[in-house]
């Protein structure tokens, strides 16, 4: 409740939360496309590749305004993504290695520039290293404005090219046959993704920004099969992760924002993977075990029916041991028979043997008829 109070009435915290919500929104929405296109780790390469641009922008202008640094980050992040696609297209080096090379080399070069700048006598460079792990607390109102505007531009581009991006993500060959410039659209979508990534770097850091591209989208995917719903959910999850992480880090001394936001997003993913209806692990496990027990019950019912056909009497009981021997594993029948009794398909006789009921007969014949139809088809 304290946090909620702070969020509503503490100016600094409100600014920070607004900023992290906006960047989470943008990276969540664009991340949905990255994940669907199997480019989850492009975000990792791009965010690392942005580092040299940040330092170069500072070196060239001497300014630490977010807009300047973001421009530098955008340029070198974009260049990194172009390198990845060029290496992939023009050499036999696999795509994942291309990502790894760009990620490590650009970042390494960024560190060279960063340490070079830090070695210079003026102290003005202090604070550039907040881009490594992120410090949302350093966001001021002007920075938030930059994030909101650039994030808005990214989302607007997404809405403007919605149909094209959708086609590109699900069936690029079909798109090309319709005459869409698939290559240019691919570049456009990547460019927008780069924009959504670089605005998050100050708050989340280059090392962990990738998670904010992947996690909200992977979580959103579990709840829906529709692209529109997935993008909105992903944006929402991103925004929530941003705010939760910022609040957590703001309330704990020495806790960097980036990891806090990433863990918040990871929490949302974990819940989604476990509990999302239809796809979630808890749901599928439960459904699978129910299916298994239904199949087991049907098998025992079919066995009882077969025995009835041999003996021709509803009052002729059969021992559990016989039913066990007929089905696969031992001990299966004893567990299933009470279930059949509950449904009214079988009944226990006084001598602890079991017989099929009239209703059970109809059910078994129905089952076998359906099975026969399925086989004929």
């Amino acid at each position, binding site marked *: 409740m304290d946090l909620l109070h702070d969020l509503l009435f503490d100016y600094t915290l409100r600014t920070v939360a607004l900023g992290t919500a906006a960047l989470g929104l943008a990276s969540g929405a664009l991340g949905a496309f990255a*994940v669907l296109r*199997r*480019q*989850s*780790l492009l*975000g*990792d390469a791009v965010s*690392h590749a942005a580092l040299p641009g940040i330092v170069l922008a500072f070196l060239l202008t001497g300014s630490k305004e977010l807009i300047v640094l973001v421009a530098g980050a955008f340029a070198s992040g974009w260049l990194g993504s172009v390198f990845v696609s060029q*290496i992939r297209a*023009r*050499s*036999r*080096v*696999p*795509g*994942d*290695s*291309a990502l*790894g*090379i760009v*990620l*490590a*080399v*650009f*970042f*390494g*070069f960024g*560190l*060279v*520039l*960063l*340490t*070079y700048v830090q*070695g210079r006598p003026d102290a003005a460079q202090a604070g550039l*290293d907040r881009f*490594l*792990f992120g410090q949302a607390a350093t966001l001021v109102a002007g920075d938030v404005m930059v994030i909101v505007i650039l994030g808005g531009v990214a989302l607007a581009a997404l809405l403007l090219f919605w149909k094209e991006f959708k086609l590109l993500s699900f069936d690029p060959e079909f798109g090309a046959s319709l005459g869409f410039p698939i290559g240019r659209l691919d570049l456009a979508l990547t460019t927008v993704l780069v924009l959504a990534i670089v605005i998050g770097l100050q708050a989340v850091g280059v*090392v*962990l920004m*990738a*998670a904010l*591209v*992947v*996690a909200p989208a*992977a979580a959103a*995917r*579990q709840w829906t099969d529709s692209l529109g719903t997935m993008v909105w959910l992903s944006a929402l999850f991103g925004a929530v992760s941003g705010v939760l992480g910022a609040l957590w880090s703001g309330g*704990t001394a*020495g806790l*960097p924002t*980036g*990891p*806090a936001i*990433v*863990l918040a997003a*990871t929490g949302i*993913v974990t819940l989604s*993977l476990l509990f999302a209806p239809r*796809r979630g*692990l808890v749901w599928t496990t439960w459904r699978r075990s129910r299916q298994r027990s239904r199949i087991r019950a049907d098998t025992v019912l079919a066995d009882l029916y077969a025995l009835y056909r041999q003996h021709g009497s509803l009052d002729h009981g059969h021992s559990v041991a016989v039913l066990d021997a007929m089905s696969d594993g031992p001990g299966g029948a004893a567990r299933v028979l009470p279930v059949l009794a509950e449904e009214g398909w079988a009944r226990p006789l006084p001598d602890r043997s079991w017989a099929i009921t009239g209703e059970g007969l109809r059910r078994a014949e129905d089952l076998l008829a359906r099975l026969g139809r399925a086989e004929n088809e």
Partner: protein
Amino acid sequence: MSTIELEIQLLAVVVAVACALPGVFLVLRRTALLSDAISHTVLLGIVLAFFAIGDLTSPLLILGAAAMGVVTVALVQVIEGTGLVREDAAIGLVFPALFSIAVILISLYAGDVHLDTDAVLLGELALAPFRRFVVGGRDLGPRGLWTMGGILLLNLLFLFAFFKELKLSTFDPGLAAALGLSPVLLHYAYMAVVSITAVGAFDSVGSILVVAFMIAPPAAAYLLSDRLPVVLLLSALIGAHCAISGYWLARWMDASIAGSMATMAGVDFLLAFLFAPGRGLVAQARRHLRQKTEFAVSMLAIHLLNHEGGPEEERECRVGHLPEHLLWSEEQVQRIVRDAERSDLLEVRSGGTLRLTEIGRERARRAMAI
């Protein structure tokens, strides 16, 4: 060069070679980014093992951290195995989460220990010579050199012992499984080797350089050769080159050593990407140009053969007529005709008439037959 400088370079070369060897298989098996994941998550292993043991120099720390690398790979596979997310997304979910936990644990509980987040990324290669390995009062050299030397030896042993298996399961996993090799067991053993290497290297050069050393030299070597043993050897050489040239770049710029080495790894890869014989961009462009010219020369020869001896020969086989007929520019025509003349396919008669030689006729017939 002082002993310290020499020791730093020696250590860097050992790290580079130790990383490049297993890196070759990472690149070939398209699991390069597992190195990125592992090099980050071993930090959590180091932190947890440190909390358990309380000693940053214990060799147990390396095992604990390496175990976390294997856990990372297993976790990625479990998540991918649910069918709910794809492999790339699974990697992107697992390693930031584990790395975040490690960073948070460090900043909350280990602020005053020698475990800080900058060192994690950058490594402390410059300080490595100051941590000595002393046995019974005798100084045996930098501790890192012994650790990494041991790990390099382990990698070499693993490589020699399982070369056939690694090769087969990399290039033909189906056949490997059919022959009774267990791809899963080999994969995990191999990932354990990668993890141990990553942990050892991590301590001296930081996580990013581990990724650079594991991927860039093997990828460059892969562009230079088709033979696995050659690729392995070249990777080691390129890695060593990155280490030494990177060190001097760092000295010259007074900048991060690890960063400079990663930069040089990028430079080496770029050189291979551009100039690799037969496969680089330059070779591709030249091949493309040559094919274009050859095609044009064949076209010209066919055109000339077609009109040879015919009534319109005078008109059709003149240089001045070609731009209109073949839709080439004037310069292009000049160039192609010169090319064809130089290869003795035709001769230019006075008045600009072209006449095929016997070789030229042969060329035209062959091109049409195809």
